[in-house]
């Protein structure tokens, strides 16, 4: 009954979307807004129905049978709702509809015409994906007769990180649809200007914050769950989340120019379309089966064709509209090369270069195989070699960009930039003397990161801190986050130590400054798994850290995983993995990773900066509205 109610709600939402699109054409604005809100409610009901069906392990629903099991802990039954293709697609559509509802409810700054056009675009987006769900990926399909038990869930996904990672990312990805719809609405009504930028900004900031958090959390989750000690693998699905983030970051900066000075109108519209297009391309890549990855859902070429059709329709349509209308968009204020706008143009360009290279790298194996029948893979060597230096250039730009004046910067910059430049030079020299064997990328990354720490805070220097706008604080902290993350990445890459050994209880191993004693190995059991757990005692002078890595076997489906044990200290992490048993002992893999936690701490700082900016803009907007009223 619940499943049918969910399916009915989904059909209703699709019908409402159709009505919303039609009415948007005729310009009936209040009706369009109510429809958007109701549509959001309907999809929420459908999603709640799916959650209910999973939590109760209703084995008459095919999706539950394929992906769940009554022995799973409750939290993972709940999270299992979106740990599969159909459920996550329903989540996608729910976020899309809720974003439209929020746009209808909260948007006050743009005219009725543009809002109606934007809501129409949002409805059009929804229609295609409702059709995809209802026709090709029905989450509520029944199974008759109902089997007694489900087939379980991939144990790699039975983890607290799973509960937060996909919904956070989806709010980010799909939230960018609002920017897309607003851009389409603006192009349709020929009204691209600072007002549009100020209206778009909170939506982009909000999506961007969630994307940053989702990517950071995903990276940390992969780090401790997969047991390889790496935090980014340039996996196609990871890239699928990074590309919208890169586009959204560029969009965010472009919006600032449009809002402040009316410039970069065409760039901003282009980026708004590209950002959500990247989300859709990502959705396609992950679900069509053209790329295999750790994250891939079940391969299904018919779904892939459907999604490709939607991609062609939406992105093609938006880009066609862009090409047709963008030349009619009024020019903004002119600016000199050395100016804040100039810096932000360079920032856009560099981010677009990284975006382009990641895009090409992700898709290259596909096309190379099609053309030459040779299999090749593009992995970290390419991505690090290409994206790394450009990212360093961006980091250097970060040191001067925020200090430039709008329109034309004529004042001397040296005294603001000199301290950071000196710090970089000093860091380079110290690293050359103390650690001559570092790779050049790590060395530069570390030096630039260290120099960027004071540089990111420089815009705050010489100001009354209490009266500095919150948005400026946000910018400083977000840039500081970039510096911190950069230091973490370089430090991990340059200074990590690894020990791989076959050991028996009683053995002692060395890794970095640590002496690790392999104390014992014992069997343990959990709700749906059994494991062999090792006790490791690690010391580096004073105090002992005790770690318990496990080699775990899940019961349904039968899968073996390594549960790594990590000890977090003030200056790094000791990461331990227990492998297979052999006749002469156990495989033990130990890493000492100095300052690796800075990577995710930096990511969190970036998100915090975004949050402060968002708060600052919203608060200032409300105060301005009040004073104008």
């Amino acid at each position, binding site marked *: 009954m619940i499943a049918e109610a969910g399916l009915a709600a989904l059909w209703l939402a699709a019908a409402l979307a159709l009505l919303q699109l039609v009415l948007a054409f005729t310009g009936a604005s209040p009706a369009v807004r109510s429809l958007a809100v109701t549509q959001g409610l309907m999809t929420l009901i459908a999603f709640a129905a799916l959650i209910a069906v999973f939590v109760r392990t209703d084995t008459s629903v095919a999706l539950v049978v394929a992906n769940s099991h009554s022995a799973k802990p409750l939290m993972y039954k709940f999270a299992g709702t979106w740990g599969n293709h159909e459920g996550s697609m329903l989540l996608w559509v729910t976020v899309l509809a809720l974003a439209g509802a929020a746009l209808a409810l909260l948007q006050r700054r743009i005219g009725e015409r543009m809002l109606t056009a934007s809501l129409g675009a949002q409805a059009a987006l929804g229609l295609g994906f409702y059709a995809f769900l209802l026709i090709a990926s029905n989450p509520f399909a029944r199974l008759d007769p109902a089997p007694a038990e489900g087939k379980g869930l991939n144990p790699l996904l039975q983890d607290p990180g799973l509960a937060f990672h996909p919904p956070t990312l989806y709010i980010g990805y799909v939230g960018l649809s609002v920017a897309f719809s607003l851009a389409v609405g603006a192009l349709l009504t020929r009204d691209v200007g600072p007002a549009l930028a100020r209206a778009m900004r909170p939506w982009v900031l909000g999506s961007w914050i969630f994307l940053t958090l989702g990517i950071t959390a995903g990276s940390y989750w992969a780090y401790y769950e997969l047991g390889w000690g790496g935090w980014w693998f340039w996996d196609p699905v990871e890239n699928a989340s990074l590309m919208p983030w890169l586009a959204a970051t560029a969009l965010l900066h472009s919006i600032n120019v449009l809002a402040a000075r009316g410039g970069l109108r*065409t760039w901003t519209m*282009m980026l708004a*379309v*590209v950002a959500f*297009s990247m989300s859709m391309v990502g959705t*396609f890549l992950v679900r*069509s*089966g*053209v790329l295999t990855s750790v994250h891939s859902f079940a*391969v299904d*070429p018919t779904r*892939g*064709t459907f999604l*490709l059709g939607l*991609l*062609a329709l939406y*992105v*093609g349509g938006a*880009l*066609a509209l*862009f*090409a047709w209308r*963008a*030349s009619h968009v009024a020019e903004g204020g002119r600016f000199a090369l050395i100016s804040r706008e100039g810096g932000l143009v360079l920032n856009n360009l560099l981010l677009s270069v990284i975006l382009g290279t990641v895009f090409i790298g992700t*898709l290259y194996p*596909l*096309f190379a*195989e*099609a053309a030459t*029948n040779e*299999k090749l893979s593009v992995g970290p060597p390419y991505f690090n070699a290409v994206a790394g230096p450009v990212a360093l250039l961006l980091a250097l730009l970060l040191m001067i960009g925020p200090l430039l004046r709008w329109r034309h910067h004529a004042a001397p910059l040296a005294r603001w930039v000199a301290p950071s430049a000196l710090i970089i030079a000093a860091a380079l020299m110290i690293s050359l003397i103390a650690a001559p064997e570092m790779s050049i990328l790590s060395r530069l990354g570390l030096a630039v990161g260290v120099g960027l720490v004071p540089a990111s805070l420089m815009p705050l220097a010489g100001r009354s801190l209490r009266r500095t706008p919150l948005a400026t604080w946000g910018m400083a902290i977000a840039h500081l986050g970039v510096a911190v993350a950069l230091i973490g990445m370089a430090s991990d890459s340059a200074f990590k130590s690894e020990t791989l050994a076959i050991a028996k209880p009683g053995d002692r191993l060395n890794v970095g400054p640590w002496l690790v004693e392999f104390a014992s190995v014992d069997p343990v059991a959990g709700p749906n798994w059994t494991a062999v757990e090792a006790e490791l005692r690690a010391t580096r002078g004073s105090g002992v850290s005790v770690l318990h890595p496990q080699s775990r076997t899940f019961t349904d489906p039968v899968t073996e995983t390594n549960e790594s044990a990590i000890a977090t200290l003030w200056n790094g992490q000791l990461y331990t993995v227990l492998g297979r048993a052999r006749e002469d002992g156990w495989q033990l893999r130990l890493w000492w990773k100095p300052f690796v936690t800075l990577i995710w701490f930096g990511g969190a700082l970036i998100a915090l900066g975004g949050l402060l900016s968002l708060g600052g803009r919203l608060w200032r907007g409300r105060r301005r509205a009040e004073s104008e009223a």
Partner: protein
Amino acid sequence: MRPRWILFVPLALLLLLIAALAWRLASPSDNIVKSRLEGRALPAFALAAAVEYKPGLASTDLASGKPRLLNVFASWCVPCIAEAPLLRRLKQEGVAIDGIAIRDRRADVTHFLARNGDPYERIGSDPESRVQIGLGSSGVPETFVIDGRGVIRAQHVGPIEQGDLPAIRHALEAAR
């Protein structure tokens, strides 16, 4: 003022991308990785016996002067069960077949052979897939045609099916 046509570049790029992705979706997926050793000599190896009653396998055994088939299998490999009758058929036709059991246990291999027939003259045990990887084989079952001098002449990936027999016989002939 930028030229008007530049605004159409993103659209053009997208259409190219869609066309390429559509082509990729339409062409059949090919997850098979073939060995690059065709035409090269077998890597040297010497494997212990996989079962008690048969000798183990060394690369020198495969340079016997006449073409042989080298079949990589495992007791836990389901398609190997399907392939077994066809291997027996080839053996009845006079083809010499040697086997390599990968990542397996003696009892399980014995059991497998008892249930599905045993066409092998010698069976080597490769518990860590080292020789398998050295051969450029990426899965089971895979069958290699080795000529009399120990050179790999052909590789068949996946289970041998009815329709593959002519090609295998042809490869054995060509390897004389």
